[in-house]
């Protein structure tokens, strides 16, 4: 069985968000980069667990980006995975990125492709679905549990106001949310092994990006909190009712 895990590089969750060059680029000075948490904690770890049950499985990692992504792929290798691909490009349009992953996926014919449910920077939640369409595969989004029995996957997914359990035949694309796996910390053996795992840098296939970011803006900060005395709860209710008009 062959599994592909899509990995994205994102700023650490505690990063200060700021922009530069006329608000056209993310200000990355002093920013710690991490594996997108959904890609790591859920998608990658679940793939590793599947391989632990079925040692003949192979796990490929893929990321689309510049050389600055390599350390992130090495971090992912420290947790697990056998081989990696980096498609060498800076483009960030979801169709463009999914097309790059689709090109590698078509070469290698994976049984299972995992993505995180979204990246914590762009919040697109679009690579998995786009990829599934390009590959003409079934797509389960926002999976919270994933079990495999032969070629049949049993997946629990979020729906509005609850969850749904479904069975699907491989091959399949799954976007992973909280619940699919538990976070792990890499061990020393993993960290040592990560250095020598094969990481292929490949040129992008010719695809046109369909969108581009014009600029960014920060969310306006709150103008200041209005404090209400602890012995005057009625005043808070009045403010919410008359001023904010939310109750």
């Amino acid at each position: 069985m062959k599994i592909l895990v899509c990995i994205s590089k994102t700023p650490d969750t505690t990063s200060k968000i700021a922009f530069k060059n006329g608000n056209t680029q993310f200000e990355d000075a002093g920013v710690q980069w991490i594996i997108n948490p959904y890609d790591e904690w859920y998608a990658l770890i679940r793939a590793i667990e599947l391989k632990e049950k079925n040692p003949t499985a192979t796990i490929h990692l893929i990321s689309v980006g510049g050389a600055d992504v390599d350390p992130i792929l090495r971090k992912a290798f420290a947790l697990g995975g056998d081989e990696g691909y980096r498609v060498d490009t800076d483009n960030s349009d979801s169709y463009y990125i999914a097309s790059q992953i689709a090109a590698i996926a078509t070469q290698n014919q994976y049984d299972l492709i995992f993505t995180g449910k979204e990246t914590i920077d762009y919040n697109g939640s679009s690579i998995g679905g786009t990829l599934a369409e390009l590959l003409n595969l079934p797509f389960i989004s926002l999976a919270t549990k994933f079990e495999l029995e032969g070629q049949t996957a049993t997946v629990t997914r979020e729906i509005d106001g609850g969850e749904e359990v479904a069975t699907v035949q491989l091959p399949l694309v799954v976007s992973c949310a909280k619940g699919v796996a538990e976070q792990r910390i890499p061990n020393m053996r993993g960290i040592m092994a990560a250095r020598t795992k094969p990481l292929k840098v490949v040129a992008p296939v010719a695809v046109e990006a369909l969108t581009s970011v014009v600029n960014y803006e920060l969310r306006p900060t709150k103008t200041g909190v209005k404090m209400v005395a602890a012995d005057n709860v009625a005043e808070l209710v009045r403010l919410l009712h008359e001023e904010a008009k939310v109750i």
Partner: protein
Amino acid sequence: MSVLIFLDQADGQIKKSAYELLSYGSSIAKQKGIAAEAVVLGNVSTDLAALGKYGVQKVYIVDGAGFQHVDAQVYAAAVSDVATQVGASIVVFSHNQTGKAVAPRVAARLKAGYVSGACALPDFSNGFVVKKTVFSGKAFANVQIHTPIVVIALNPNSYQIQEADGVAIVAPLSIAVAPASIQVTKVNKVSGEIPLAEADIVVSGGRGLKGPENWGIIEDLASSLHAATACSRPVADAHWRPHHEHVGQTGFQIAPNLYIAIGISGAIQHLAGVNRSKVIVVINKDPEAPFFKAADYGIVGDAFEIVPQLTAAIKKLG
């Protein structure tokens, strides 16, 4: 040329987010001077002609048993076929569970530029630019779409529902429905609770509540406001509350009209899940809690005293 609005349904009823989307899609159609039309997959008991009130001129209904559960492949094929058949140039979805599964596939099928998490009407002054939330609500990106066909997924609770007079034409449409690849075997609905994603008001508790046995005051306050209940990550991790209540960076990201945080200090990861709320109230005994900086209203004090008083005062409001 038209705007095609995908109406998401659950149990035969059009969802609340679909009404926001009708208003949003109809407003885009007005901006562009083109028709606003909607599509529903499967049977619904909602009065579709009455959706004209929200500015839509026509509602296409595609009947079929294959739409009972969301199979992204089946839904995307159907919506794309409808879009092509009716000549839609802009297709809009809610950025909810269904939208996240279906919209990117539709965009890929139509080779349309796709913007998800949109939070405002497009700007046509320089091409086709859509504003979306990024960095978990901490910022926005203005995204230019370069293709003749466009797919947009709108954040729930980010566009005001607008009502006027109007009756829509309901037009059945027949298209070939693709065979399903996903077999749904079980559906677990959380009954009796207001779904977090659709709630106008959310009451949320943190570690300051000291233990699961103290959640009664949160539930009472929530019920007095017809609100959903939520919690911070440490609370979910300690299994005081179920994981589906966890809001924050790695839990649910919500955007209610009112978010009341009780005993939550306001770590940056928590704020990332709630900073799209219109009004934030923070109740915390620590005056230095960082959450106060992100709040609109605050009370410093003991939650166990303040929350029951708050519930009583709200009940008085009727």
